[in-house]
């Protein structure tokens, strides 16, 4: 009699449901399209002004943009794209809370973790594809504009280009975990920006002898290692750093599931 919890809400059904939800909102396509275009255009801006030291002519630019490295210049748009994609990750979750559809969702699929997983899978796949296209396009455009762009076959180059897509996917999923945990768009977006942008800046103010040891553990610094051709002693090795970022994502999503199980919908 008690064949417990064998639901017809199948994996494919859940994935299809989340896919319908994501694709049926215009904001999804605005964010993804905007990110793609932004990555290419910013890459073009930085590579085309590379000889003169960047758009301001001073060699300044977003943090992490090294004007001596054409590859980094071409992919510099990831900085802006992570904002947009992170917000998308938040919105696809908090939108369910602000609109109230979360109750229909959990009525249709009462178990919480498969819903969290399905949303993450659909969102992750969507962002991975778009971000990979954006990174490859930015790289191609940059190669055409600037001299001395390392070829894709060269050591670490493909890792950096596709790593950009992996990094953006991880940040998006971090946004979705924060969305589940905080349920409010403003709160989750502010927390995500704090983690990704503010903490590294604050970390820079820490004393030099132990500050870097703290900073490299931050999600964006750790994950950012994957986007560097060469890493310094202060930074994690590329894949180690990305694994740390994925660790944050995993902890965030696990915490989200735990919260959902103990809290009213």
């Amino acid at each position, binding site marked *: 009699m008690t064949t417990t919890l064998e*639901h017809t809400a199948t994996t494919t059904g859940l994935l299809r449901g989340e896919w319908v939800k994501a694709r049926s909102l215009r904001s999804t396509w605005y964010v993804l399209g905007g990110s793609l275009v932004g990555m290419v255009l910013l890459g073009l801006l930085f590579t085309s002004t590379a000889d003169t030291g960047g758009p301001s002519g001073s060699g300044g630019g977003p943090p992490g943009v090294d004007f001596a490295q054409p590859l980094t210049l071409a992919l510099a748009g990831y900085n802006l794209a992570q904002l947009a994609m992170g917000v998308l990750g938040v919105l696809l979750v908090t939108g369910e809370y602000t609109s109230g559809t979360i*109750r229909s969702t959990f*009525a*249709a699929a009462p178990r919480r973790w498969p819903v969290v997983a399905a949303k993450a899978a659909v969102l992750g796949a969507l962002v991975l594809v778009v971000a990979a296209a954006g990174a490859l396009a930015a790289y191609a455009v940059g190669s055409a504009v600037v001299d001395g762009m390392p070829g894709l076959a060269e050591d670490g180059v493909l890792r950096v280009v596709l790593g950009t897509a992996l990094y953006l996917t991880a940040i998006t999923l971090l946004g979705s975990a924060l969305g589940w945990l905080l349920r409010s768009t403003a709160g989750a977006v502010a927390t995500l920006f704090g983690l990704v942008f503010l903490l590294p800046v604050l970390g820079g103010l820490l004393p030099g002898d132990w500050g870097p040891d703290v900073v490299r553990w931050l999600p964006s610094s750790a994950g950012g290692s994957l986007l560097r051709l060469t890493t310094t002693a202060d930074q994690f090795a590329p894949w180690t750093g990305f694994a740390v970022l994925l660790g944050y994502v995993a902890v965030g999503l696990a915490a989200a599931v735990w919260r959902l199980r103990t809290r009213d*919908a």
Partner: protein
Amino acid sequence: MIELQGLTKRYGERLAVDDVTVTVRPGVVTGFLGPNGAGKSTTMRMVLGLDRPTAGTALVNGRPYAEHRDPLREVGALLEARALHPGRTARAHLQALAATAGLPRARVDTVLELAGLTAVAGKRVGGFSLGMGQRLGVATALLGDPATVVLDEPVNGLDPDGVLWIRTLARRLAAEGRTVFFSSHLMAEMAVTADHLVVMGRGRLVADVPTGEFIRRAGGDGVRVRSPRAGELAGLLTGPDVVVESAERGVLLVRGVPAEVVGDRAAEAGIALHELTPVQASLEEAFMALTADEREYRTEEQPA
């Protein structure tokens, strides 16, 4: 069938639902009444497995909601008005849920048709009127062709056409043998729609009775009499169960004596009657009388 057993929900200090035991049966429309904050919505959320009971159980068709293989085929619910994403079309909203619940895609068009939304299925919900949103909510509730239908204030904000539509639908669903559990603030609506009433006040169960009995219990029926010699007539209508009130000069409200007896007594005494009307206590009056002590938000402030 919905079975609540000792159902209790506490939010911090506040006991929103307090030890409620009641069974909502199939085949009839059960009205769920109670003043604001009585705990109706909270009870319904617990039935759907959305809020966790502090104590007690809520079973639907014999099991807790979340333990059903196909929960949307067991229970369909309209919980709050407009639990809809404004940026999504009506069809996409239903398609997403149908996919998630593993329901056949054809159900989407069936319920759109049933709710009269076929023509606007491709429109974004943000542009819907209150009534259209409510219709889509009802379509959502019926998506799984459920045996039990839970509707939280479905007529809220609807025009007379919409109210009639919900009433007809609720009665039809019950006639098909489904369990229909329907909350509303509109007592007059309940009087014509519901066969049975479950009344809550301040989290507690106040009444669980057939609609007719509910009205009788709280005051019963009476006779309105208008006569130039009303005072004299009142003197003739004495008896153990008889209550005579006078709302205005020359008008009596008599309870405990049938209209025929009032007429005969008046005729015997040669008293002219200008009106003799049997009156039914309204559901509003019955409801007010029953929940007088349980109402949380009264018109006059009462110190706790």
